């Protein structure tokens, strides 16, 4: 026991050191370009400097901060809660490490490594540590009364260790701040951690942009130097390919609709029966299309379209392009050597394990290609001109699409189809949701929400989060590219500015669960962060919080519980956190911990329903925490009960209420 104890404290000490040092050397993203369109973040080992921060687009900054907060709070809260429990004074130390970040600095243009928000944090943090210790007991069952103290102690110790390990793990998670260029040329900045898939990031972007979420939306990377473009596959991790970018790279990440992304599932005949005449293909019945997909993607092995044809291959280091008969097989691309038979003497041109397929842009000019319909196979790490890049040129754009899609099928196999199904589900739910939400207008009372939350046992599973945006915004703003007023702080909430008016709030409220039986739709969309206390912290939905919200309805799609407010940016800014919804706290939903009663209490006592929401949303937190039944003790990231957050929140809420009153 003792040695474990010792070990643990050593560990903690080390971690503290570690994080402190990180805190010092972490750098804020500095904007390197003057144009607001393309801000490339670079990272230098400079101190945090206000000017450079100011240069950032506000939403960038905002996103960044909010994400950091989300991050921090996610990991730290539970940590603190846990440790507070043990009355471990050491941990209460505000210096608590800013968790997630790789130790090595990672720089990518238009990306920057996460910076530690220690400065902002510490302030927010302190309140956590104080006074409320008893109130945090939630995470831990009242073990003090429990008979076997030894057991409990042992338990505590091992929990501590687990916690520490977890934290260590967390600290290793690499994160990037990514600037995504939108269709309209604007850009959004988000933080992506290495566990997030492209799908997660897309979902996140859907929330931010209110686009129609159709299956064609994709993230892609461009490489201007090689004039390449590639759509990421939904199951890929985003951080990996981005990590391959060089320091001075001008590569970009684009968020755009790419019809060829899932074309093979919409019109499989064009790929699998490509030899047939155009008319037959066009007249293909839906049933036959389904059959084709089923045949080729649902069997024990994925069938690759039997492509063969003459492609032009760029000779190594020469300017000539030579025609060759190429064949696609599941195992790779082959060509037929001159004068050899097609079946027996195939020579392997490339296998797909180590290469990705890219579209080449305007190669007629760049490389004197026969046509502009070129595709390229290269190792993802290669970023510059090299003999290891293979360039192929097709006769027309259709052949190019055929080949690129065929290669993707061969390379990714079943995942491609899984991705498509996920995207479809998402798209359908979104459209269903949008249809529904536009029709709803009434304002459910808060209390009704509460009962709902309480009553529906499902509350745990899918927090019926109030997806305010679709409702409030759809009427007002055009959905897809969110026209972000530059001054806005919280990009995800285009309505934020309006929020002070009670009307706005009521508008948002309709989406409360009462209206919608906690159906999947509700969950999915959760376009905007929930507004209650907890959300306020995670409200900056700018980035996906670590556990990515899965589109699966049954899944706990909630971002990690967070208890802090994002550091209030500046007094110049309007209301910092948007969250005027007293209704729901997604976090509470996670753990069977009925938050409602306290809330009700509060509501009754303090605030009449109609008044501007912000205050209620905060104050309740504290009360929630105090009275909440103890959730099962856990060390997992699921951990709910934001330990100290409530207190701080309530203070803030009070302040805001005051402010409002003054107005």
């Amino acid at each position: 026991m003792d040695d474990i104890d010792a070990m643990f404290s050593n560990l903690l000490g080390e971690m503290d050191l570690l994080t402190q040092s990180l805190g010092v050397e972490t750098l804020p993203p500095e904007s390197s370009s003057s144009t607001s369109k393309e801000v490339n973040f670079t990272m230098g080992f400079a101190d945090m400097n206000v000017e450079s921060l100011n240069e950032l687009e506000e939403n960038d900054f905002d996103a960044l901060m909010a994400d950091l907060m989300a991050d921090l709070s996610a990991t730290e809260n539970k940590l603190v809660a846990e440790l507070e429990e043990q009355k471990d004074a050491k941990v209460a130390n505000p210096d608590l490490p800013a968790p997630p970040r790789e130790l090595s600095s990672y720089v990518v243009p238009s990306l920057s490594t996460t910076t530690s928000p220690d400065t902002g944090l510490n302030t927010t943090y302190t309140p956590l540590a104080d006074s409320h210790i008893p109130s945090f007991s939630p995470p831990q069952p009242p073990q003090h009364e429990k008979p076997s103290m030894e057991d409990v102690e042992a338990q505590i110790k091992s929990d501590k260790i687990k916690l520490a390990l977890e934290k260590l793990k967390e600290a290793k998670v690499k994160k990037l701040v990514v600037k995504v260029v939108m269709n309209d040329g604007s850009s959004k900045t988000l933080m992506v951690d290495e566990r997030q898939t492209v799908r997660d990031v897309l979902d996140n972007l859907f929330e931010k942009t209110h686009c129609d979420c159709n299956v064609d939306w994709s993230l892609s990377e461009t490489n201007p130097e090689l004039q390449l473009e590639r759509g990421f596959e939904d199951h890929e991790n985003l951080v990996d390919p981005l990590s391959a970018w060089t320091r001075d790279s001008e590569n970009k990440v684009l968020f755009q609709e790419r019809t060829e992304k899932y074309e093979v599932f919409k019109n499989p005949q064009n790929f699998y029966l490509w030899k047939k005449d155009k008319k037959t293909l066009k007249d293909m019945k839906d049933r036959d299309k389904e059959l084709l997909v089923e045949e080729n993607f649902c069997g024990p092995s994925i069938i690759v379209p039997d492509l063969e044809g003459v492609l032009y291959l760029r000779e190594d280091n020469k300017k000539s392009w030579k025609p060759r008969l190429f064949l696609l097989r599941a195992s790779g691309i082959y060509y037929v050597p001159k004068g050899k038979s097609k079946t027996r003497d195939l020579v392997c041109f490339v296998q797909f394990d180590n290469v990705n397929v890219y579209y080449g842009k305007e190669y007629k000019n760049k490389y004197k290609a026969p046509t502009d319909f070129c595709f390229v196979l290269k190792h993802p790490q290669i970023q510059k001109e090299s003999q290891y890049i293979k360039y192929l040129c097709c006769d027309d754009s259709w052949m190019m699409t055929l080949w690129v899609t065929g290669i993707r099928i061969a390379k990714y196999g079943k995942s491609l189809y899984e991705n498509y199904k996920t995207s479809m589900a998402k798209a359908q739910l979104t459209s269903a949701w949008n249809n529904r939400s536009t029709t709803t207008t009434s304002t459910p009372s808060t209390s009704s929400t509460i009962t709902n939350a309480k009553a529906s046992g499902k509350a745990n599973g899918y927090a019926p989060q109030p997806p305010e945006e679709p409702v409030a915004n759809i009427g007002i703003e055009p959905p897809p590219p969110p026209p972000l007023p530059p001054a806005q702080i919280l990009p995800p909430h285009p309505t934020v500015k309006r929020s002070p008016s009670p009307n706005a709030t009521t508008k948002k409220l309709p989406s409360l669960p009462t209206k919608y039986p906690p159906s999947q739709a509700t969950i999915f969309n959760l376009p905007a962060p929930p507004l209650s206390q907890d959300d306020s912290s995670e409200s900056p939905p700018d980035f996906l919080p670590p556990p990515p919200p899965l589109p699966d309805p049954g899944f706990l799609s909630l971002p990690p519980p967070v208890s802090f407010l994002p550091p209030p940016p500046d007094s110049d800014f309007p209301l910092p956190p948007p969250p005027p919804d007293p209704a729901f706290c997604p976090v509470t939903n996670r753990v069977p911990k009925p938050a409602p009663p306290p809330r009700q209490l509060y509501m009754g006592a303090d605030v009449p329903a109609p008044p501007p929401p912000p205050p209620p949303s905060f104050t309740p937190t504290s009360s929630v925490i105090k009275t909440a039944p103890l959730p099962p003790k856990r060390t997992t990231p699921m951990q709910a009960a934001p330990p100290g957050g409530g207190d701080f929140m309530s203070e803030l809420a009070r302040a805001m209420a005051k402010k409002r009153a003054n107005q």
Partner: protein
Amino acid sequence: MAVWDLSVTLEDLGAEAPPITVSVTSDLHIGGVILKLVEKSQVRRDWSDHALWWEQKQQWLLRPSWTLEKCGIHADARLIFMPQHKALKLGLPNGLTIRVRACFSGSVFRTVLGICKMLNIRRPEELSLLRPVEEKKKKKDKDLSEEVYDLTDVPLTSVSRPCLYNGMPAHFADSPKTEKVYKMLSVPQPAPAPEAIAKLYRPASIVDKAHIHSRCTHTHTHTHTISTFTSLCSCLLSFLLTHITLATPLRWLDSSRSLMQQGVQENDRLWLRFKYYCFHDMEPKYDAVRLTQLYEQARWAILLEDIDCTEEEMMLFGGLQYHINKLSLSEPQAMTSTPAMDDLDSALQCLEVKLDVGGSSPQDLLDNLTAPELNDYLKIFRPKRLTLKGYKQYWFKFKDDSISYYKSKEESLGEPIQQINLKGCEVAPDVNVAGQKFCIRLLIPAPEGMNEVYLRCENEEQYSRWMAACRLASKGKSLADTSFQSEIQSIRSFLAMQQTNPSTNSSQTDDNINTHSLVSPRYSKKYKTKQLAPKILDAYQNVAQLSLTDALLRFLQIWQALPDFGLSFVVVRFKGSRKDEVLGIAPNRLIRIDLGVGDVVKTWRYNNMRQWNVNWDIRQVAIEFDGNVNIAFCCVTADCKIVHEFIGGYIFMSTRSREQSDTLNEELFHKLTGGHEAL
């Protein structure tokens, strides 16, 4: 009514025994005839399995209530009274032969059902029986010595799915002998000696080659079909066609008629093979035998070049075979012991225990956080630099997924001269065992392209460790990965393979499998052992972590992804065409292949098919597709019943996925495949 004499031969009395004559009237029913016969024979035994066979008409008299008149039997009829179930020598896909008691009176479809039930193969409709190719004289002697596993005593169970006992169907668990047979059925066979494969394939002339190909069609096509068609040049093919038409009888048996009706005698040899290439609902848990036999059939198809694959694919198949061989030799229990784990509860418990262990010892977790390293003096060479410096020695450290090197061991605490991250890199061996050259060639991706680096190790031991580490790191795994040790092991065994002289290699040991037995003769000839081994090892690395079942499934997956998978070929002449062409029949489509070029000219899919008709008189198959597309063809070499059965069979197979029930719709099968003879 007039009484007349009917003479019946009793098979059990022996061929020479005179027929027994019974007095009958025309309105006596068959059951009555049998009763009289048995009484008169004075033999006391169980006659329940016996029935009357009408020799002239080649038909069974199976309805006891029909009268002689109704059956059309007169005094001149020669009837034989014999058992319906007789012994049959059955060649299995894995090349072994078993003796089973099979039904000679029901349709072949029924017979296969019975055999599969006994062998515990689900989905028997996918299999059928075919005649083996004529054995050459020189092979006869070998055949005589061949071991035949006798299963005739094993009772055919009436239970629909035999209950498992000790991981095998109860009827196999009776005696150690049958248990052994079950192992043989459910565990892949060791690799054949390369000589054995080569013996099947040493075509001296083009004629030989054609002949061999017709022989080799055995695996799953009848003689009138030509597998590996596309691999033959047209002159071979034409030879093949004449050869086939002249010489051989039908290979696939007609599934709507009985064995007796097709001239199969007791103790004849038949092959049991998968005929329809859609393997529905493969569930390793229940399908040990089915999966193994299917793997064997696929493996032989590939080894005998029945289906074409590229070199890269062949090496992967080789790697998988190597892995499967190794696993099935080392743990023959693997397949049969799994049922113990079938129970979900026990599986969960097992998981829980694991979790508990993991959770309760944070110490272990901590240990895992400190990664193991490799440290050694190695030599490095970078060919990219134009100077011909050659190999230079440094102190190397391998940690996580990167290599760092230092001037010397003493300086290893400082900054390395260089650190190379191996994630995503290509690793290739550059080894000459005889020349004691153990190099690792690394292609390391960088933004500017790939950097080529050679690492030279001193000896096998060092090489195995560093090579294993490089391979793991290239896949993003660290040395802490559990597969590290097994990786080292397999590299060692492949090195050993390259050491041995091919001539001494024919006697295989357990862990030394001749790589030449893993690839088809084409590649055996192309490469020497020391060239082949690294290629197979390379492919093997990617599959080395698979369990036996997963490896079998992977093998089948790759097989099924081959472009020519599932095609059975028939030579036909299309209506209005003057030349012979080849019709390929696949699970989902028909293809028309031009004989001259070998190209696919046309594809028709079954789901566009409206109807198909067979004109039995002129042996013509006519098919109508959506959009008024009509085709008609005569089968040049095959009986059109074969084509009819294939098409109907595939359509039947496609109905299975829609039907939720597990029961086999036999009636529908016969309706789709039977033709007028069945009615």
